[in-house]
């Protein structure tokens, strides 16, 4: 990514108020969700809304990522074709496999050419949200040079292996470690799953610190109020990181 994305704030692609207010919380990036946060009957309307929003609203201080529907659904490809011409920073791909990433990369190359955009100006962020995706994370993130980050969606992943999520997160320790190390080895950013209790700012702080220690470079936020805490934790860790090196 162009700048270090500490916070990645998710908003619904079908709610104008959230689209307008998203930059207010100073996230490094926002994820405009066309998938989970939009009901099936509103997919078409949300897609158009997001296209218009990207043209109209001032997102100059944030990276705009659009989370598309799974490519296996009837919506995924339409999402990309509608939104790519208004040039989001990246698409986030659920249930991503290496072949999906490659296919999308090719499609984007065509669109970029047609629109006169620079080659590879639109990035891809695979979402790691099922067991197969977790175990093939290495090949997925290396499938295209457009992949600049990966996002661990531990809610869906834990559901896939039949586990219950806890605030402490012991049940996702392996997944976190695996995804973060794969991404760090590939030299890309890695964004941790959101902390689901939006009213528990202390819990969020501890969870963010844990993600940071495990090698994540950023964390998802599902409420505007979470952004500041996440930014503060990652900023503090950057300052600390400079210190122990003198002892190595």
């Amino acid at each position, binding site marked *: 990514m162009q700048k270090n994305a500490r916070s990645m704030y998710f908003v619904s692609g079908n*709610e104008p108020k959230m689209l307008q207010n998203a930059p207010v919380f100073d996230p490094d990036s926002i994820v405009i969700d066309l998938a989970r946060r939009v009901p099936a009957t509103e997919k078409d309307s949300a897609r*158009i809304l997001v*296209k218009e*929003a990207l043209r109209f609203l001032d997102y100059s201080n944030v990276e705009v990522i659009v989370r598309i529907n799974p490519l296996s659904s009837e919506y995924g490809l339409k999402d990309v074709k509608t939104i790519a011409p208004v040039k989001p920073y990246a698409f986030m791909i659920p249930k991503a496999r290496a072949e999906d990433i490659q296919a999308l990369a090719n499609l984007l190359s065509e669109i970029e050419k047609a629109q006169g955009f620079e080659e590879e100006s639109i990035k891809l962020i695979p979402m790691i949200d099922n067991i197969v995706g977790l175990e093939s994370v290495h090949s997925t993130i290396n499938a295209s040079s457009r992949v600049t980050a990966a996002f661990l969606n531990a809610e869906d992943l834990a559901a896939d292996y039949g586990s219950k999520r806890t605030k402490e997160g012991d049940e996702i320790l392996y997944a976190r470690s695996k995804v973060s190390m794969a991404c760090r080895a590939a030299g890309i950013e890695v964004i941790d799953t959101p902390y689901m209790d939006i009213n528990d700012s202390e819990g969020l702080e501890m969870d963010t610190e844990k993600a940071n220690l495990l090698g994540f470079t950023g964390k998802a936020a599902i409420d505007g109020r979470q952004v500041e805490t996440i930014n503060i934790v990652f900023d503090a860790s950057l300052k600390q990181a400079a210190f122990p090196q003198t002892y190595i």
Partner: protein
Amino acid sequence: MLVTKTAQAGSTANSDVLITVSPSETPGIHLQLKSKDVVLKLFGEQIEKVIMDKAKELGADNVTIKAEDKGALDYTIRARLQAALERASN
């Protein structure tokens, strides 16, 4: 774009607009705009223009457009109108 049936898009949530389009017997674009008085006074003409421009751009005709506005900005009005027209025409 031929409007063959009645269709809606948007919602009555704050900052959104609920647009209902339906076929009209008479040619042209027939607009009914509802919003708070203060919004109509300050921005009524602008909102009407946004709707008419977008409807014309999409080639809509013989259509009645009802817009129930909840403080939507121009981009939302354009998007909801396009979604409603697309839904009404296929």
